[in-house]
Each structure stands twice: as structure tokens, then as C-alpha cells.
């Protein structure tokens, strides 16, 4: 992956070379942290599967932010496509074949197809009304997963499957028992998806999405077919998040309806905002902070939900730009 590829298009401070250098610096830092995480996580009281969890939810949040931060359309129902990824992967592993790549592929297809169909239905809506319709559609998938007991295990969730080891021809990767190997497998998929996302955002198509976010009227009078571009962005974002969903199924060896529920959608949106929606890596940082914070709060009080809700309120009222957004602001000032 080329180093200059992944950056935050738009919102970046101008300044040519300085900007490019900062971008490379950011990339080196991010990848150094991610690649070395299994080494230092135990030293700071973490554990490898916590890192994997952050990676998966971070990917989901970044996929959502492709739509929220870079197209300017707020979906509050993206858990639907995440959850379809979870179930698509789980169902293949449970009923069809013990193949990790096929499971991921099935999740991608299931979430992607659903995102394509629903994106076409809602691409004409804007702002709060767009959010509202995404919420309502999410509920359909939740109901299907919840009610179709025979296939999905209903409320108790789908059990009885495990991720399968990867056979590469020359070697076998033990991702079942070895948490560290599994972490690097997830990181590999993460890197692929994030690279594709970054490349798209730097492409002419990606720029039209920024254009729609910045000023829909101007974009329309440049001749951009707004509805088609929003539809495409929605579809791509649901494919990306469905891949994250597939990884989530592999991580937990379990699929349950809460992975398609509104609460998860809200959590993914808060991860984006917490890290900074205008910054490419923001949602990953947001996911890390949110997961650790939630872990901490829920191990200290049974009323953790109250405090998690409090986090939402405090972030919205006092830190709407998010952590990286504030950092960038200070740097620019």
C-alpha cells in the first residue's frame, strides 16, 4: 500500500509539502501502533482480543463515516448492514462450509445487496428524514433475525459455529486458538478495506461525495447526478461495514440480533463523532476510546448504561468536533 494513499481528503489544512509530510507521519504512526498492538497491549492491562474488537468496530465506524463524514448523509441504521455481515458469515460457517473466506464473502454479499436495495429507496431523502428512514429499515432486519427462529436462533442468537483456520497452500494459519494470529488476520482485512476506502475518497468519485457534503446545490449545478452518487456511497459504505460484520462473527463465534439493533447504530455514530467525523482515522480512535471506556464503566457499576448515555451527552455538548478534530483545529490555529 502506497503511503500517500490514505489521508483525510478535504478539511485538511492547505500547505502542500508540509501537508504531505504530516500525512505520511500520521500513516507511519497509525500503522506502527496497529502492528505492534499485540506486543504492548498486555503491558497496559489490555488483552489481544480487546485489540481485535477495537479493530473490527473501528473498521465498522470508518465504513459508516464514509457516508456520514465524507458524503454528509447521517445513517442511524447502519447496524443493519453490519449485522447482515455478522449473520451472513455465521450462517455459512454454521450450515454450509467451514471456510473463513467464504463466510466473509457471504457477509459482504448479504450486507451489500441489502444496502444497494435500501439505498435506492432512500437516496432522495435528506438530513433528519434520511436518518429516520434508515432507522426504520434497520428494524426490518432486526425483526427477521429475531423472529426466524429456525434459521437464526432467534433472540438467543446463532451458535454452533467457529471460525476456520486458513490454509494458504504453503502454510496454515491457526486463527482458531492463537489470538495473536487472528489479530493479524483481522488487521490484514482491515488494511485492505481501509486502503480501498482511502483510494475511493481520493478519486474523482470520492471528490464528488465531498462536493455533495459541502454543498449539494452547487454539486447539482455542476451536473453531478446527486441521487446516484448518494446511492453508490450508501452501497459502498454498507459493503465495507458488512465486511466488519463478518469479522465480528469470526471474533465472537456467535451472531445475535443485538448486532443489528439501533443501539449499535448509535454507538457506531458516537464512535465517529468522538474521534472526529472530518478526519479519516477519527472513527478508529473513537472506537478505541469508546470500547475501553465502556469496558471500564461496565466493570465498575451496574448502572453503566447511565454513564454511557452521559458520554453521548457530554461529547455532543462539549466536544462536537471530536478528539482529532480538536487536535487539528489547534494545529491550524
Amino acid at each position, binding site marked *: 500500500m502506497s503511503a500517500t494513499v490514505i489521508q483525510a481528503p478535504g478539511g485538511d489544512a492547505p500547505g502542500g509539502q508540509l501537508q504531505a509530510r504530516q500525512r505520511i507521519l500520521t500513516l507511519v504512526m497509525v500503522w506502527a501502533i496497529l502492528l505492534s498492538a499485540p506486543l504492548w497491549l498486555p503491558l497496559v492491562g489490555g488483552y489481544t482480543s480487546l485489540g481485535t474488537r477495537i479493530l473490527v468496530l473501528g473498521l465498522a465506524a470508518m465504513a459508516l463515516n464514509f457516508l*456520514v463524514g465524507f458524503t454528509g448523509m*447521517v445513517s*442511524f441504521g447502519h447496524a443493519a448492514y453490519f449485522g447482515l455481515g455478522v449473520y451472513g458469515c455465521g450462517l455459512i460457517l454454521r450450515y454450509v462450509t467451514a471456510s473463513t473466506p467464504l463466510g466473509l464473502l457471504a457477509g459482504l454479499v448479504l450486507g451489500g445487496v441489502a444496502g444497494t436495495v435500501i439505498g435506492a*429507496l*432512500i437516496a*432522495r*431523502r*435528506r*438530513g*433528519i*428524514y434520511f*436518518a*429516520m*428512514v434508515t*432507522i*426504520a*429499515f434497520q*428494524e*426490518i432486519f432486526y*425483526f*427477521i433475525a429475531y*423472529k426466524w427462529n429456525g434459521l437464526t436462533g432467534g433472540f438467543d442468537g446463532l451458535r454452533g459455529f467457529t471460525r476456520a483456520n486458513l490454509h494458504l497452500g504453503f502454510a496454515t494459519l491457526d486463527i482458531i486458538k492463537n489470538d495473536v494470529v487472528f489479530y493479524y488476520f483481522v488487521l490484514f482485512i482491515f488494511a485492505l478495506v481501509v486502503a480501498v476506502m482511502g483510494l475511493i475518497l481520493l478519486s474523482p468519485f470520492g471528490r464528488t461525495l465531498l462536493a455533495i457534503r459541502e454543498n449539494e446545490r452547487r454539486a447539482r449545478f455542476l451536473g453531478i447526478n446527486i441521487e446516484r452518487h448518494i446511492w453508490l456511497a450508501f452501497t459502498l459504505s454498507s459493503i465495507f461495514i458488512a465486511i466488519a460484520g463478518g469479522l465480528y462473527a469470526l471474533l465472537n463465534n456467535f451472531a445475535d440480533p443485538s448486532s443489528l439493533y*439501533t443501539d449499535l447504530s*448509535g454507538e457506531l*455514530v*458516537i464512535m465517529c*463523532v468522538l474521534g472526529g*467525523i472530518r478526519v479519516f482515522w477519527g472513527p478508529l480512535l473513537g472506537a478505541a476510546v469508546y470500547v475501553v471506556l465502556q469496558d471500564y464503566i461496565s466493570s465498575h457499576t451496574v*448502572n453503566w*448504561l*447511565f454513564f*454511557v*448515555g*452521559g*458520554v*453521548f*451527552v457530554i*461529547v*455532543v*455538548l462539549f466536544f*462536537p468536533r471530536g478528539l482529532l478534530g480538536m487536535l487539528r483545529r489547534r494545529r491550524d490555529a
Partner: protein
Amino acid sequence: MLQLILFNLFNGLIIGAFYVLVSLGLSMILNLSNVINFAHGNFLALGGYLAYALIPFIGFWPSLLVAPLATALIGYVIEVTMISRLYGRDPIYSLLLTFGLAFMLQDACRYIWGVNGLPLSVPNNISQPLSQTYFFLNAYRLFLVGIVVVSVLGLFAFLRYSRMGMRIRAGILDLDTVSALGINVRMLRSLNFAFGIFLAGLAGVLAGGQIGLNPNMGDTLLLPSFVAIIVGGMGSLVGTLLGGLTIGVAAALTAVVWPAGSDVVVYIIMAVVLLVRPRGFLGEEGMQ
């Protein structure tokens, strides 16, 4: 069989009545403040719990009014101190705020009144069945439907004939003009929010008498109420009313032939409406 159909229809009417109360409040807030109130279902539960706390002191009937009023007051304070600060900003912020508030209210109710369900006692003389054959008919349920009808008529009369109601309607159509006429839009939105919450609180007390109280009691009503608004057409309260009744009755009728499908049908209706008539029954062009 007739008994079964009547039973389900009547249940549909009751559920529809709750959808109407919840979705009208949500719709008022959405139309004037451009905010989706995720915490609406939790305000509903709060209304029920407040009635539970008040009944030993003032009895059922006064609580039916006082508990929703107290809920509305809490809603008013939350609107003024938090939600109003986000008007004019990207909708993502108000969505997240009410989402967080929903978590907080839900957990607060759980902390104060416990995880387990609580009964909300209804006066004895209205809780007995009226007939053996039609066991599902009791005075309380009839009374419940009556209260909802009266509240809805009252709401529409208020919006039509009172000065404030007219301002709210004008504000929904064109907030800038209303503001230019020197009307205090901020105050109007706060009071409108409180009205919406009052309806939620009222629904909470009524639902408590019907199915008892629990911290999540509003959740099952919240999402179908979103659907009622979408189906009825965003921006139109009459549309919301029709939407709420439609899905309530459709769900009940489906339950006669396919009990498991009564929840699903709500979303099928939504998908069909979005395909065939994207702006809903009475939605304004462009309000989408």
C-alpha cells in the same frame, strides 16, 4: 371466530391509540424542532413511573393529569438546557443527544424503580370485564380509547384555534417568516417540545394501567411510531394520525391470520408506501 376477530380488532384499536399518542408527540417535535426524539419512549416510561409514585398520595385520576404534566416539565427543562443548543447544527448531534438521553432515562428508571415490572393499579370499578363473552372489553380499555380520542381532538383544536397553536403550525411551514414576525421561536419550540412529551407521559400512564410498568416499556412503541410518521407523511400531523391508525389496525388484522406477522406487517406497509408514494399519505412535497 367472530370473537377472535373482534378481540384482535379491539386490541388493534388500543395499540393504534398508543401509536397515535406516541407518534403525534414525536411528529410535533420533528416538525418544529427538526429533532428525532429517541428518548420519547423513555419519557413515556417516566410518565408511567411518576403516576406510580403519585397514586398513593393523590389517587389515580389526578395522577392521570399530574404525572404527564410533571414529565412535560422535565422534558421542558431538558429541551431548554440541552436540545435547544443544537438547533441549526448538523442533525447528527441532536440524534446522538436524544439517544444518550434515552440511555440515561432508561437506566435512571431502572435504578429508582427496579428492573422488574411493577403493576400500576387502576380503580377497581373500571377494571372488571363488561361481559363474559367479550371478556376483553372492560371499562378501562374503553376509557383509554376515549381519553386518546379526546386528547387528539383537543390537540388539533389547540393547533387550529389557539394563538400558540397557530404559531406552531406556521412555524412548521416557514420558521424564518415566523421568526421575522417577531415571534419567539425558541420559546415556541420549547413549549412545543413539552407538549409532545406530555402526550408521551399520558401514553405512559395509560399503558401502565394496561400492561404494567417496566423501564423498557416505551421501546416497543417507539419504532412503529417512526413508521407511522413516515407512512403518514413527514410534516403532516393528520398524516401521522392516519399512519398510526393504519399500522395499528393492519397489525391487529394480520394477527388474526398470522400472529407472528403482526410486527412484520408494519414494516411491509412502510416499504410499500416508500416505493409507491415516497412522501407518504399526506406528506408535503419536498419535505422528505
